[in-house]
């Protein structure tokens, strides 16, 4: 391995690392993947690299699903479901009940013992202009509880740096892991110390913009 004196990632095209989430998830079969896309099609396609077949449906379809319409697929059609921008999808629903109905429907079309990828943006404390709107959204713990109630199991949260589209680092949402990562990626001395203090205090969601939930059924 060549060390880069500037510490930058290589810029040569080396495949799309977005699909490496599959090596952290419990994805047994790589045949059919369903992606609920908010319009970022290159990202949606990259998520499913390695799958034999990808079905990409627009997020707007979920609006009807939340109101009781079924997804147009038979039960257990897919080996994996990905909702790369779940915040945008959840924004469509006017109540938690609608969101739950949509999640249940995703569970229905997923085969047993297979994978789930859900991407959330962090509720940005620093982004004050959008705070009030985001505060109405489901909190991470509520999102998680809802997914569990809908039949998803073994859910694990990761922070993704700098973004799900460029997942250079994927950090388990656990204090030990976040502190270890902060130590490894130490920047300026005072910033690094401040970040580690925030991480140790369990406030690590403040440090990251993006969160991804990976799980199974």
């Amino acid at each position, binding site marked *: *391995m*060549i*060390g*880069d*004196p500037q510490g930058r*990632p*290589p*810029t*040569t*095209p*080396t*495949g*799309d*690392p*977005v*699909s*490496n989430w*599959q*090596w*952290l*998830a*419990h*994805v*047994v079969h*790589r045949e059919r993947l369903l992606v609920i896309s908010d319009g970022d099609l290159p990202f949606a396609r990259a998520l499913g*690299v*390695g799958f034999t077949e990808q079905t990409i449906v627009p997020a707007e379809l979920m609006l009807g699903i939340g109101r009781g319409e079924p997804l147009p697929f038979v039960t257990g059609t897919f080996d994996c479901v990905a909702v790369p921008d779940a915040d945008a999808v959840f924004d469509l629903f006017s109540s938690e009940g609608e969101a739950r109905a949509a999640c249940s429907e995703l569970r229905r079309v997923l085969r047993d013992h297979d994978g789930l990828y859900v991407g959330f943006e962090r509720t940005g404390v620093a982004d004050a202009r959008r705070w009030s709107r985001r505060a109405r959204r489901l909190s991470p713990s509520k999102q998680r509880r809802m997914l569990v109630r809908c039949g998803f199991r073994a859910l*694990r949260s990761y922070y993704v740096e700098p973004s799900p589209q460029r*997942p*250079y*680092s*994927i*950090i*388990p949402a*656990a*204090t*030990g*892991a*976040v*502190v*270890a*990562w902060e*130590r*490894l*990626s130490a920047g300026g001395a005072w910033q690094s110390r401040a970040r580690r203090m925030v991480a140790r205090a369990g406030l690590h969601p403040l440090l990251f913009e993006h969160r991804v939930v990976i799980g199974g059924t």
Partner: protein
Amino acid sequence: MNVELRELLRVIDPAFGNDSRAWTRVTVVRNIAAIGTAAAGASEGGGGFKLLVTDRRGVPQWVGRCVGLGDPPGWLTGDHMMELSHDPVASAHVPEVRTAESANLRLMLTAYLGATSLRSLGERMRPEAWGQHARAVAEVADRVTARAGTINPTLLAALTVSEQERRLARDLLLVGEAMPEMPIVEILRPFLARYAELPFRLQHGDLWSQNVFWRNGRWWLIDFDECGEFYTPLHDRFHLLSAAPRAATERPWFALRGDQRPDDWGRARAAVLRDHAAQLGLDDALVGLSLVAYLVHLIGFRMRPPLHGLFTARLIGKLTRVSTYLSEGGAIEKLVPLR
């Protein structure tokens, strides 16, 4: 978590077997390319991701890389380091390496040193102290690299003069491609006439200050991926000197013009080279020739796949300076001032 990855981690560290929170112990820290599956065959890219593996409390235990078996073979090449880490002599300076392989994945983990690199240490040092440390590191690298040749004699197969001349010709062509704006090959060729006189020897290959750590009273070396690529004497020393502390890197220490004299950093660097050059029987002209050969081979290496010219800009700048110095009548004996 993924059963295949978890099984590989369990092979390397049995504590993964029954840990329901095992997923919190694996952080992906350098996710640069898609992992191909064995079924998909070799992908265009490769590289996979680097892992930081901690214990349950978050204390780092291992760092390493996970790639697909379908990825090009060059993306996981830690075999030299693994051999050295299990060697009773070299293991005093090379951290433990473990590997595991499954149907789709190959995992290679190195024991986390938790140590300070020479780069970090060097930023707080005076030139003379840094030079002493660099000399000690180079001597350790000499011993460990010699051991690599003993463990794996195939690394010594390229030590023939004819093979080295073939590689020089190949790399000169690539340097010509990398520097089309100047007749670099024509300028350098006369100065390379004594190339066959160099006492070629196996080199670590990537001995820069981020691959050298100080822990428990001794130096530790990592990243032997380029061991077997370079055989120019002093290659490792030139590489180590190139990545000197920030205070030193901007100061010229070779190809000095008439009235320029080495400063403290230049003298510290000269001290790193001087004794070893004398041991090898290199006169001043051969030391200058070694610097030219070092730059040519390194640029040639970085121009070839899989790097395709990555990280060559600084090297090209240095070779431009050297070739300008030589084309303006500078003596190769004085290219690298040793005193």
